[in-house]
């Protein structure tokens, strides 16, 4: 695999991944599978967005559901109350999420490590509570989106899920392009420098607050886009669904699972986690004994234990097998 790494550039590997993802739903025309693919693409993109602030810039966010929810709510409320096209809502939602991100994260950037992480968690929970109590957006009751005739403009498709998939897919590819662009530009280097040592970064002329803010803005913008898309796809949202801590954690975990701070990570992670959770539930969820989640939990533990650097570690690891092990003593 080390060999292949040299032969194929990151760009090529990513392109192949994207092509594979694009043709898979055509190859397997099953609606439930399409659903899994849509969820996969959405979550891979969410992981990618989150990766920018946490994987690249090293600022652990446990509150990304806040941006997701803001995106979902903005487009849904506009659509439901004023019949504004979800596309407009999507853009507005992303902008609002970005604004909120700036306002809430700016004061938190002085916090280090876990203190920052808990702060984002707190912000996420507070924003959820605001929406639960906000009558204008129907509070805890949630919003059922009106069902309209199919159409690209109103972002509703009833015959087939493929249009949803390809819309999500295009946005997903855009997110990858953005993430790729960031990683290979000045900004990417600066973010990673901040992650490794903020002080070293400052000493070579990096304004950490500014770059963290940029990263947060981009990350929240993209997260919100997928929030809108998700709401449009499910056609129902409530605050417990789109602002939940488990959602934030899902984004975190799939990225960690795949490999934090890499472009492949979120894709690999989502490709494992989403089908795994869907299919364990489908196979065992009907028992009513929690067997699906026992199995899912166990698999997550095993993956974490045997691929502690994320699944991406697999690719680096193969080449080294067969050598006598030395290194740090375990015991």
């Amino acid at each position, binding site marked *: 695999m080390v060999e292949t790494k040299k032969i194929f550039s990151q760009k090529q590997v990513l392109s192949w991944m994207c092509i594979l993802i694009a043709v898979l739903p055509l190859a397997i*025309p*099953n*609606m*439930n599978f399409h*659903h899994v693919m849509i*969820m996969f693409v959405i979550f891979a993109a969410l992981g990618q967005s989150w990766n920018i602030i946490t994987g690249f810039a090293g600022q652990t966010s446990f509150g990304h559901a806040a941006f997701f929810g803001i995106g979902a709510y903005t487009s849904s409320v506009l659509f439901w109350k004023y019949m504004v096209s979800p596309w407009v809502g999507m853009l507005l939602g992303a902008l609002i999420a970005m604004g909120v991100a700036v306002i809430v994260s700016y004061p938190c950037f002085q916090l280090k490590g876990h203190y920052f992480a808990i702060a984002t968690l707190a912000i996420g929970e507070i924003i959820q*509570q605001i929406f*639960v*109590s906000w009558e204008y957006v129907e*509070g*805890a*009751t*949630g919003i*059922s989106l009106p*069902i309209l005739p199919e159409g690209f403009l109103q972002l509703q498709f*009833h*015959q*087939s899920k493929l249009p949803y998939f390809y819309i999500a897919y295009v946005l997903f590819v855009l997110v990858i392009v953005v993430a790729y662009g960031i990683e290979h530009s000045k900004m990417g280097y600066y973010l990673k420098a901040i992650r490794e040592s903020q002080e070293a970064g400052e000493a070579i002329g990096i304004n950490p607050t500014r770059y963290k803010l940029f990263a947060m803005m981009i990350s929240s913008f993209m997260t919100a886009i997928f929030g809108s898309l*998700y709401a449009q796809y*499910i*056609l*129902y*949202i*409530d605050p*417990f*669904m789109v602002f939940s801590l488990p959602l934030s954690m899902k984004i975190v975990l799939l990225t960690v699972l795949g490999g934090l701070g890499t472009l492949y990570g979120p894709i690999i992670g989502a490709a494992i986690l989403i089908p795994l959770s*869907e299919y364990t*539930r*489908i196979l065992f*969820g*009907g*028992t*009513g*004994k*929690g067997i*699906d*989640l026992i199995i899912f939990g166990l698999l997550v533990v095993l993956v974490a234990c045997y691929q502690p650097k994320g699944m991406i570690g697999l690719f680096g690891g193969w080449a080294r097998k067969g050598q006598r092990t030395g290194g740090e003593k375990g015991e």
Partner: protein
Amino acid sequence: AKQQVQQSAQPEQAKTPEEKVDVVKIGAIFPLTGSAASTGVKLKYAVETAEEIINGEHPELDMPLAREAGLPNLGNAKVKFIFADHQANPEVAKSEAERLIQNEKVVGLIGCYHSSATKPASQVAERFRIPFVAGSSSSAALTERGLEYFTRIAPNDDMETAFFFEYLKYLNATYDAGIKTIGVAYIDNEYGVHAAQMVDKWLKDKYQGEGFEKVVDVKYPKDLSNVDTEVQKIKAAKPDAIFHASYIGDITQFVKKYKEFDVVPKAVVNYCGGFQDPQFVVNLGKDADFFSGSNATAPSLFAKMDTLNKINEIYKKKSGVDFDGPALEDFASAMVIADAINQAGTIDSQKVMEAIKSAVFEAPYFVSGKIKFGKNGQNEYSASVMVQTQNGKYEAVWPVDYQTAEPIPTFPAWKNR
């Protein structure tokens, strides 16, 4: 594969009616894991009970589909309920509904307990033109969406609220209970908030004029560690009656704290939720007494209702507990959808839906004895009775026709128990 593409591209296309069926599949979506799993699992047992009654031969039961094995009008085809877990997540409810329809080819859906899950799941059913019969989901909003393929058995919170006020009026009139002020304690989610809205609505529309007044409104967060503050607020306002929209975990804590802080309202009425769970009495023992709530059934009624009693025996063998309201309602939803398919004599969803909408279903397990859906899909016969816990048992106390015990109109002081 090509055929499949066509099929998924035209979901509304109905199956050919002549098709011979051996097994009729019906999807059942419940919260089988997560914080509502305790209820969800009971609902699953209830549906399994229905399945057993339909598929087996139960001459002892005087109700449709019991005597013969399977669905007689479909050549004794068996019914198979396929369960799915929505984990209290609307997204999952939606995708499970789709999967059940698409992959499992179910011809009808029941569920989902949580109204928030029933909403998207029934939208899917609507889109595929598959009948959806909700059992215990109580949000009034469900039947206000104008869906054609959606019906619901349980009385909604709108009806429940009126029922509560009428009960309080009955207590005032018959026992001179003197209940005027009310407090509402409810969970901050769709279930609680909607119930509280209905209280406000009914007060404004009708009952304020009849002397009722709301004095305190306690909304508490969804996940909850303790209710000290909530109970203090209630205690300070001294309402005569408390309306509770709470789940089993919270209501248990409330009762504990009512006792600790010596809160003695005259009556506590509960929306369909935690109070109706038999675990309420198990957990709280004597402290559980004198609370009341609307319920589709009560174990004390079993003596009066022979069929229900026998059904309950089957259920109890599976679940280890007696039927409670939500379980019976979801049992009913399973029976109704099977009955409708049988009456239609086909699995053609449009015909089945016609049957659902037009038939009057025999339901000897309900006090109302019948189920009939109105235009909007709401069951017109409210199956509810008011039950009160007395000596560790749920007694039906109102309406008078179904009374198994007289209501105890006011709460005794905690120390006098």
